[in-house]
């Protein structure tokens, strides 16, 4: 019972702060609400027996990516968005979002969970350690995707330097 109470609390905070991301006028406030959402998601990852992913979520998302975004917001010195939102645009967007939610919940209702339960149980995670399990999977089964990811990062570095430089 306290478990579901805690889940409801965290989920409510996550939904509220993500609504604030959309609703706030000042981009800095949006960024801060987004960080709050990331922390809530990290809490949920801990509840799902994935402490390593929670740590990575906080370090990479709430740390690195959000620092980059806040840095750019401050560098560009934007003024607050003028309130020139078109009413019909907002209305249509709301309808589209609600339809998306309906489609998702329709899928959830129709599809029962099938498939073989695998080997990763809570006992195993507690005994071996989540980081070790991730490491074993990543450096054996997923070695090639891991290497390709490093090439992706290299391309991203080169691309961003070329784009942001005034003169090559």
């Amino acid at each position, binding site marked *: 019972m306290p478990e579901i109470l805690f889940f409801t609390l965290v989920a409510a905070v996550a939904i509220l702060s993500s609504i604030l991301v959309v609703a706030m006028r000042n981009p800095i406030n949006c960024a801060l609400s987004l960080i709050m959402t990331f922390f809530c998601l990290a809490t949920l990852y801990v509840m799902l027996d*994935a402490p390593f992913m929670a740590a990575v979520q906080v370090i990479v998302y709430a740390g690195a990516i959000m620092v980059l975004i806040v840095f750019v917001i401050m560098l560009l010195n934007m003024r607050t968005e003028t309130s020139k939102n078109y009413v019909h645009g907002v209305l249509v967007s709301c309808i589209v979002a609600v339809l998306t939610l309906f489609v998702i919940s329709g899928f959830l209702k129709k599809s029962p969970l099938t498939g073989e339960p695998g080997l990763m149980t809570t006992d195993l995670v507690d005994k071996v350690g989540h980081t070790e399990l991730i490491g074993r999977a990543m450096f054996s089964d997923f070695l090639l995707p891991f290497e390709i990811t490093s090439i992706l990062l290299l391309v991203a570095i080169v691309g961003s330097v070329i784009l942001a430089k005034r003169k090559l």
Partner: protein
Amino acid sequence: MITLHHYLILSGILFSIGALGVLIRRNAIVIFMCVELMLNAVNLTFIAFSRYLGNIDGQIFVFFVMTVAAAEAAVGLALMIAFYKNRESIDVEDMNIMKL
């Protein structure tokens, strides 16, 4: 007892809010943040399925999604800085020519 459906419904709600933000906001950086929100909703789905099916592959996928999000952040923000240098604005309505 928390079931898989709780997590999936939460993830669906977060995804819809992110999609709404992408559609109604006009500031490019806020749109970018809403895309990150949608990516995170998908990550939550991956980890919830991974836990309830007892398979660690979903969490490896979350790792790759995070890498792609980081690369996207670097390139996207560099694009916005380059655009701001020319047009003094990052409003998506001002992005109507292809020349940077």
